[in-house]
């Protein structure tokens, strides 16, 4: 016994020495901080650019990512972790700017017919693919057909964007103009024209991707890295700044964190609050929004949770600010419905305070529903998302205050997808949902018959509002309808909406220009070295 204790002691001593040592060792990390700027910079969601300084051209950087790419073909990639990288190689007719507005990219301009049945795009002059060919109307038509499923035969592995299946025909008006005809008119589809434009009938997109973006693909080694180099012919004057960007694939955030401490990574976008505080002396820590809706999603058809009063009780019993303080060091934005704040036009801030933390009220509602002595339920959480697991742990403690016993069940992500998301075999779960920058995409799962309505939420009023919102072409009406849907979700307590989690990014203090977007991308075109360009490969 004593032997065991002494072993334990030695290990503890070792760990203390090692961990204590590393905080002093920051100045030995080999990171050149000649600029002397080791200040922490914190910015609000929606994100502006980093500190300005003399932007210089040239240099190379390493960006850390933790997920391997699922495909190099932009129409075959599904993982968000892949799309954020490919964003630098490919572009669509339009792209989102940092405020969430869609601005023309490959298209110089576009018009949508008032009834939403025709979208007309005028192409930008003289844009070249990375292989030197000019972008033609044929390429655009081919690309749009490829990702909307209109190509025959359908190419293997291409994931069809279901919203684009509304397209019935794509017509070449002239060399510079393409008209898209919709089978079901809608004015909301412009957000889907971010779909990447690729050269027609190019067969090696899987291995040697060719696009029009600010960077050209150079090489990809599975599990190791993807390297891209500056596109000298990029149509935006003055961009990109960097000569070379390496996206380095780390096995997990812990391995990436080690590399950050060693200074081999210049930009890393998925820090935990704890890691961020450890890195604040050597890196600029920037805060944006993950553009996720994190919630305790409830199965509205299961046990006590089928009763609206029980769900409302859980909402009243949730101290959302306390959750954010506990799991994210206070960084995050309280939300009250299924919408994230960076989507300003459709966001209703009033709903944030609809359920003020009030355990008395929660108990009253429980008693009304016949659960005066509380009840027990299980929260199923995907174990790979530490953030959601910790959130669930805090919730369990909070619900104990009103006599409700919640148990946490951890499952693997693959099992979560098949059992919870598709099988709807669960009581409650904590996850974050993302969406395209289209209001209908964010809210459509709440339609009673939606195939991805894993909450089993049913409200005919919402169904009607959704149909109206989708049909109307007037922007103000749309806004009213979608806001009304959000209010109904809150009133019905469809789920316990918690927060839009903050995205913490470590940036080498010698770099400037890192920009946040309301979509999940890592834009390297705006990043530059301040003062003197450095090489990190």
């Amino acid at each position, binding site marked *: 016994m004593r032997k065991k204790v002494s072993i334990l002691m030695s290990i503890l001593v070792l760990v203390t020495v090692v961990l204590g040592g590393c905080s002093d060792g920051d100045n030995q990390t080999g990171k050149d901080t000649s600029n002397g700027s080791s200040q922490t910079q914190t910015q609000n969601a929606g994100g502006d650019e980093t500190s300005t300084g003399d932007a210089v051209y040239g240099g190379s950087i390493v960006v850390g990512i933790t997920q391997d790419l699922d495909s190099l073909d932009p129409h075959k990639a599904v993982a968000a972790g892949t799309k954020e990288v490919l964003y630098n190689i490919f572009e669509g007719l339009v792209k989102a700017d940092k405020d969430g507005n869609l601005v023309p990219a490959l298209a110089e301009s576009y018009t949508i017919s008032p009834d939403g049945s025709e979208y007309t795009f005028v192409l930008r002059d003289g844009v070249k693919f990375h292989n030197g060919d000019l972008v033609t109307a044929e390429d655009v038509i081919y690309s749009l057909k490829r990702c909307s499923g209109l190509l025959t035969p359908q190419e293997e*592995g291409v994931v069809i964007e279901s919203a684009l299946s509304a397209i019935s025909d794509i017509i070449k008006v002239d060399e510079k103009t393409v008209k898209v005809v919709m089978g079901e008119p809608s004015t909301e589809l412009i957000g889907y024209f971010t779909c990447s434009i690729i050269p027609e009938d190019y067969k090696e997109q899987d291995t040697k991707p060719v696009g029009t973006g600010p960077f050209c693909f150079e090489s990809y080694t599975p*599990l190791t890295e993807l390297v891209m180099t500056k596109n000298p012919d990029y149509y935006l004057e003055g961009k990109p700044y960097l000569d070379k960007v390496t996206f380095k694939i780390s*096995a997990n955030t812990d391995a*990436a964190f080690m590399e950050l401490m060693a200074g081999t990574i210049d930009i890393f976008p998925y820090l935990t609050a704890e890691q961020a505080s450890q890195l604040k002396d050597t890196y600029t820590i920037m805060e944006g929004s993950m553009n996720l809706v994190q919630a305790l999603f409830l199965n509205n058809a299961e046990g006590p949770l089928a009763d609206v009063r029980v769900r409302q009780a859980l909402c009243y019993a949730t101290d959302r600010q306390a959750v954010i303080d506990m799991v994210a060091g206070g960084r995050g934005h309280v939300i009250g419905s299924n919408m994230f704040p960076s989507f300003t036009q459709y966001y209703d801030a009033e709903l944030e305070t609809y359920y003020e933390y009030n355990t008395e009220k929660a108990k009253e509602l429980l008693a009304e529903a016949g659960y005066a002595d509380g009840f027990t339920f299980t929260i199923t959480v995907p174990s790979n998302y530490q953030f959601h697991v910790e959130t669930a742990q805090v919730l369990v403690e909070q619900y104990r205050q009103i006599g409700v016993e919640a148990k946490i069940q951890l499952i693997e992500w693959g099992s979560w997808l098949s059992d919870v998301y598709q099988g709807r075999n669960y009581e409650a779960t904590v996850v974050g949902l993302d969406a395209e920058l289209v209001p209908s995409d964010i809210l459509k799962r709440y339609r009673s018959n939606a195939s*991805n309505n894993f909450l089993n939420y049913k409200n005919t009023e919402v169904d009607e509002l959704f149909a109206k919102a989708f049909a109307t072409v007037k922007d103000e009406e749309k806004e009213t309808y979608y806001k009304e849907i959000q209010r109904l979700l809150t009133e019905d307590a469809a789920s316990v909406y918690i927060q839009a989690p903050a995205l913490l990014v470590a940036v080498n203090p010698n770099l400037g220009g890192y920009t946040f977007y309301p979509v999940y991308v890592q834009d390297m075109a705006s990043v530059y070295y301040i003062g003197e360009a450095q090489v990190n490969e």
Partner: protein
Amino acid sequence: MKYLVKKLITLIITLLLVSCAAFIAFQVIPGDSVTLALGTDFTEEAAEQMREELGLNRSIPARFADWMAGAVRGDFGTSSQYKQPVSQLIADRLPVTIWLAVLSMLMITVISVPLGILAAKSSGGILDRMITLITQITMAIPPFFLGIILTLVCGILLSWFTPGKYVAPDKDFSAFLHYMIFPAMAVSIPKIAMVVKFLRGSVLRQLSLDYVRTARSKGNKESAVLVRHVLKNALIPVVTFLAMVTADVLAGSIIIEQVFNLPGLGRLLVVSISNRDFAVVQAIILYIAFVVVLINFLVDLLYRWLDPRVE
């Protein structure tokens, strides 16, 4: 000869059973590659289309038979994630894992054999106690934890290597070896402890046998007794143990590759399991099983050579 044939048949049966087990395990665990690939964009139609493309809509026995037929011809199919032939994927990552294993085994033998003998020789003395204490401690540390400590101490505090700065062997071999020393250390240190403990026991057992007294009474020096007489006998069980350690080293490197960010087989295996990339997982499992069985087979041969009494 008969022995060889017998062993070969065992090898084939083992591989067959292993691939069967891996195949079934993959059918049992929830979530398939289609579910994972589509994620929250899952719809029945999209899933159906994808299953058809990947050939996943056929019956389980049909798929297994297909896979077996390919495997026999050396064709392990195409990775559903990387869209590359599985054999290519594995071949690219194999050198990393092999080098890790070779370096680790080298460290284990070179360090543990002298240490084990030293401990046995000074049995009960201060040196022995020191060695025993250190081996007890290092044996208790899991390799992944050791890996993290090594990265912190050698990589970040002492700057002996740059964490994450792995260099491919065909780019700069000496830089590659330099980086690989540290993961190899993480894999081998706990194993060194085990081998030292084992060898020490084995030597002590031999020392208590009659032939040692005879050797001594013939006037041999103590060190000559140890090296010429005891060591050969004491090493026989250690060789068997080393074979087991080799299998362990392979398993350990799967974890260590995650910690040190090595693009080896182990990381490929972990990534493929979480993506339900069946073709890759199946081929790697088969490969690992093959290596383990092969090593056991070689050890058997070595054993017979070391000790002709074994039949």
